[in-house]
C-alpha cells in the first residue's frame, strides 16, 4: 500500500529528496559543523522559512484541496508558538532563579522559587501571580502536547460552530479573520496571562543546553526540515486516498457531495482541525528560532500573507505552496532587510524598503488575474512540454 502511494505520487519522492539534499548542503556549509559559508543568522532564516513552508502546506490542504479560504491559520501557528514559548520561558527563568537563590544562606522552598519565577516573568505586566493557563508550563511533555491540543481544540470548536451553521465561502473567510482578530486583541491585553504586547521572549535559548547558537540553529533547521518532510508526506497521503477525493469534491461542488450521502461538515471539520494542528507544530518550531513571539504576529494580515504565498506558488499541488512560501518570504526578507540595491530612475530613487509592499500587492493582483495557477502553472507547462517530447519521439 505504502509503495503504491509513493509510486502514484512521484512528486513526493522528488520533493523529499530535494529537501534532504537541501538540508545536507546547508549543514555542510554551516558555521556550526561545516565550512562556515552560511552564517548562523541565515541558517535561522532558512529554518524559519522551512516552518513557513510547512504552514503553507497546511494552508494548501485547507484552501487548495478543500476550498476553504481560512484567514485564521496564523492564529493556530501563533498559539503553537505560545505553547512551546511558555515552557521555554518558564524553564529558563527557573534555572536562572534557582541559580541566583542558591547563593542565599537558606535554601529556597519550592513556593519561593515559583514566586520568584512569577515575578521575573510577569513583572513587566505588573503582576507576579501565575495565571491558571501556566499550570503545565513546568512540564515539557505536557506543554508539547498542548502545542497540538490547544490550537486543535480551538479549531475543532470554531470549525464545528462555523460548519454546522453552513457558513461558507467568503463569509467563512471573514469569520475566520474575525476569530484571528479576536485572539490577537485578547492577547494584547496585559491580563491575558501571556504578558500582553510584550509577548514571550528569549525563546532562542534552550534551557539546560550549553551548545552554541551555531549548533542550536542547525538542530532546529534539521527539526524543521524533518517536520516539513513529515507534514508533506502526511498531506500527500491524505489527499491521495478516498478522503482526498471527498474533500476535493466538496471544493468543486459541496451540494453534490452532500447529496451523495457524505457528511460534508465532518470532512470539513476534520481537515480544518488537522491543518490547524500542522500549523501549530510549524509555529512551535518557528518561534524558538525567531526568539520572540508577541500578539502582533497573530494579526489578521499575517494569515492573508499566508494565502498570498499559496496563491503565488499555485494551489492544489502541495509543492506549489512550499515554493510560494519560500520564494515570497525569502524575497520579502531580502527586500525589507535593506539588502536590495536601490533603483535610481533619474527623477526618483526607488527604495525597496518602501516600495516592496507596493510591488508585492500589485504582483499579487497580477498573479490572480493572469496566472491563477501561480508558479506551479509554470512547472505544469514544463512537464507538458517534456511529455509531449516523449510522446513525439
Amino acid at each position, binding site marked *: 500500500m505504502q509503495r503504491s502511494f509513493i509510486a502514484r505520487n512521484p512528486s513526493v519522492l522528488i520533493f523529499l529528496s530535494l529537501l534532504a539534499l537541501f538540508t545536507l548542503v546547508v549543514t555542510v556549509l554551516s558555521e556550526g559543523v561545516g565550512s562556515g559559508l552560511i552564517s548562523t543568522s541565515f541558517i535561522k532564516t532558512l529554518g524559519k522559512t522551512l516552518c513557513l513552508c510547512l504552514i503553507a502546506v497546511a494552508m494548501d490542504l485547507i484552501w487548495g484541496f478543500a476550498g476553504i*479560504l481560512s484567514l485564521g491559520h496564523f492564529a493556530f501557528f501563533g498559539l503553537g508558538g505560545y505553547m512551546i514559548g511558555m515552557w521555554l520561558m518558564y524553564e529558563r527563568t527557573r534555572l536562572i532563579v534557582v541559580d541566583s537563590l542558591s547563593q*542565599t*544562606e*537558606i*535554601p*529556597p*522552598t*519550592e*513556593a*519561593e522559587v515559583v514566586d520568584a519565577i512569577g515575578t521575573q516573568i510577569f513583572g513587566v505586566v505588573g503582576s507576579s501571580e501565575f495565571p491558571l493557563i501556566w499550570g503545565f508550563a513546568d512540564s515539557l511533555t505536557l506543554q508539547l502536547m498542548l502545542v497540538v491540543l490547544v490550537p486543535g481544540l480551538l479549531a475543532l470548536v*470554531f470549525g464545528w*460552530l*462555523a460548519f*454546522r*451553521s*453552513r*457558513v461558507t*465561502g*467568503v*463569509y467563512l*473567510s*471573514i*469569520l475566520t*479573520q*474575525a*476569530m484571528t*482578530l*479576536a*485572539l490577537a*486583541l*485578547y492577547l*494584547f*491585553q496585559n*491580563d491575558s496571562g501571556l504578558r500582553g504586547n510584550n509577548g514571550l521572549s528569549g525563546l532562542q535559548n534552550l534551557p539546560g543546553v550549553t551548545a552554541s547558537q551555531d549548533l542550536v540553529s542547525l538542530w532546529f533547521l534539521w527539526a524543521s526540515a524533518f517536520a516539513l518532510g513529515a507534514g508533506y508526506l502526511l498531506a500527500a497521503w491524505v489527499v491521495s486516498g478516498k478522503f482526498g477525493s471527498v474533500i476535493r469534491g466538496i471544493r468543486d461542488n459541496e451540494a453534490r457531495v452532500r447529496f451523495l450521502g457524505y457528511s460534508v461538515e465532518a470532512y470539513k471539520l476534520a481537515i480544518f482541525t488537522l491543518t490547524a494542528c500542522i500549523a501549530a507544530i510549524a509555529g512551535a518550531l518557528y518561534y524558538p528560532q525567531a526568539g520572540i513571539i508577541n500578539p502582533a504576529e497573530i494579526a*489578521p*494580515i499575517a494569515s*492573508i500573507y499566508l*494565502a*498570498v504565498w499559496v*496563491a503565488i506558488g499555485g494551489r492544489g499541488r502541495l509543492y506549489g505552496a512550499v515554493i510560494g512560501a519560500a520564494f515570497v518570504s525569502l524575497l520579502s526578507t531580502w527586500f525589507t532587510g535593506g539588502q536590495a540595491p536601490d533603483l535610481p530612475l533619474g527623477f526618483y530613487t526607488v527604495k525597496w524598503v*518602501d*516600495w*516592496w*509592499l*507596493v510591488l*508585492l*500587492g*500589485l*504582483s*499579487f*493582483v497580477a498573479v*490572480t*488575474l493572469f496566472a*491563477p495557477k501561480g508558479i506551479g502553472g509554470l512547472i505544469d507547462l514544463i512537464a507538458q512540454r517534456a511529455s509531449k517530447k516523449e510522446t513525439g519521439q
Partner: protein
Amino acid sequence: MRHIYVAIWAFAALLISCVSLSAETADHPAIQPLLQEHQAVIAKSSRKTIGPAIDAIAGSGLPQAQKVLQVWAAKNMWMRKSDGVFFIGEKVEGKTYRLTDFDSGAVVGEFQKGDLKQLKPNSGIRALIGTALVQFQLSDPDPVARADALQSIARDPSADQLTPLRGSIASEADPALKAQKLRLERLLTIRFGASDAERISAIEDMAGDLGVDLRATLNPVLATTREAATTLPSANIAGVLIPGEGISRDEAYALLVANDLAPAQISSDDMRTALAAHIDGGRVADVPVAQLNDPAMRARAYASLAAEGKVPPLVSDADVAASLSAHVFYDRYLDPAAPVTEAAAKALKDIELKVGVNQALDLGLDALSLASIYFLAAIGLAITFGVMGVINMAHGEFIMMGAYTGYVVQQFVPDHTLSIILAIPLAFAVTFAAGVAMERLVIRHLYSRPLETLLATFGISIALQQLAKNIFGTQARPLTAPGWLDGAWVMNDVVSISYIRIAIFVLALIFLCVFLFIMKRTRLGLDTRAVTQNPGMAAQMGINPGRVNMLTFGLGSGIAGIAGVAIGLFAKVTSELGSDYIVQSFMTVVVGGVGNIWGTLAGAAMIGFLQKGIEWMNPSNTLAAQTYMIIFIIIFIQFRPRGIIALKGRAAGD
C-alpha cells in the same frame, strides 16, 4: 463779653473737632495696633504659627485688612527694625525705601534698607493669606474677581468661608453669580453648617441634584474610617464588618496589628531572615540548613528558636482566629452626627440612582454615535459587498483616501468650514474614480471567483497602504474640524455629546436617505437591482451590466471616501486608518444581513451598542470589549447565518 464769645467759639470748635475725630476713629480704627499685637508671630513668618495672626487681621472687619493682606502676600510689607512697626515698602533707588502707613495712607519717610526688614511669606503662608482674602473678593466690585473667589472656595472649601459667603449673597447684583453663591452656600452648609438641623435641611434642599459638586460634597460627609475594638463604641457607626464577609480575614488581622491589638504575623520572608540570622555551625536549632528548603522543617526550626526566646513566637492560625473573634470591626463615619450622615447617605443613594439612569442615557448616546460611525464605514460596503457581492478588502483604503483628500484640501484652503465643504465632493470624486478604475481593471475579471476577488483586492489594499505611507509618511496627519463643531452639547453633568458626533450621526442619516433614494427611486438603482438579481436577463432588457456594475462600484467607493472625511475628523489620519475599520465593517454587513440597507443599519446599531455595553461593564479594557464582541458575533452567526435581516426567496440567490 467778646472774650466769652471767643471762648465759646473755641470750645465749640474743639468740641466739633473732637466729635469729628471720634467719628473718624469709630469708622476706621487703626489696624497697626492689631498688627503689633501679633508682631512677633508675623515677624517670625512661620507657617505653623501664623494662623491666628491672619485670622485676626481677616476677621477684624477693618477696611484696611484686605490691603494689608494683599501687600503682605505680595512681599511688599516691611518692618521698621527700631520699633517693629509694619509699613508698605516701596523701593525708591539703590537701598532706599519709601514707607507708607497702612492706616493713614501717608508717606512716613524714606529709610535705608539696613534699618528695615522685608517680610517674605513662603508659599504655605501665601496660601493661607489667599484663603483669608477670599472673603474680601466675594464682595469685590469686579464680577470676574467674585467669580474667581467662588471658584477658589469650590475648589478648596473650608468652614470659615461660610460666614463671609452668606454675608455676600444679599448684596450680589449679578443674578448668575448670585445663583452660584446660593448653591455654594448650600454645599458649604452641608459640610460645615453649625447645627445638624441646618445641615440636614441643606441636604434636603439639594436632593436629586446631578451636579458633580454635590456628590463631591456629600462623599466627604460620608467618609468612613475602618477600626477595630473589643466592644462596639457608641460612635456614628456606618456598618459592622464580619471577618471573611465584609472584610477579608487578612485585612481584619492587619487592622488589629496596626492598632497594636494583636501581635504581627511572621511572614515567610521574616521567618527566612530570622532563620538566616541564627545559623550556627550549618544548623538552625538542630535542623541542618540543607533541609530548610522544606516549609515544614522551616516551621520546626523556627518553633525551636521561638521556644528558646531568640525570635518572636509564631502566630498560629488558631491565635489569629481567637484575636479576630475577640474584636469587632466596623466602619465609623468621620462625621459624628448620625442624622446628618443618614440624610446624606439617603440623598446620595437617590442621586446615584438618578445618575445611573442618566449614565445609561449617556451610554446610549455614545453607542448611537459609535453605531453611526460603523454605519458610515460600512455603507459603501453595503453597496459593493451587500448588493454586488464583491468582497472589496481595499474598502478601508478608500476610507483612508477620503481622509487624506480632506487633509490635502486643508493644506490649500485654510478655512476649515470651507475646506470641509470642498473636501466632501472631492473625496467622493477621488474614490469614485479609484473604484471605477479598480472595477474596470481587476474586479470585472473575477466576478466568477469571489475568493480570488478577496485576495486581489487585498493586494491592492496593501499596495495602497504602502503608497500612502510613502507619500504622507507614517505619522498621523491632522484633519481639523471647523470651529463650530468644537465643544459638546451638555445636558447636565452626566450626559453630554460632542457636536462632531452629532454631525456624524446626521451624516449617517443623510447617507441612509441617499442610498434609499438611489436604490429605489433612480434609474441606476433599478438597473443595479436588476443586474444583481439576474445579469443575463437584465442584459436582454437592454441594460448594460458592465456599465451598471462599474457605476455601482464607483458609488460604493465614493461613499467610502466621504465616510473617510467624516472619520478623519475625529480619528487620526494615518495609512492604517482603513484597516482599523475593515473587519468591523464587514462584520456589520454580515451581521446585518447581506443585500439590505436596513440590515446594515441594524448590524451597525447592534455592534455599536454591544461594544459600548461591554465597555461599560469593564471600562478599563476596550481591547477586551472588542474581543468579546467578536466572539459574540461569531456565536450570533450560528443562530442567524444570514444576518439579522435575511433576504428570502429568489433575491437570496444561492
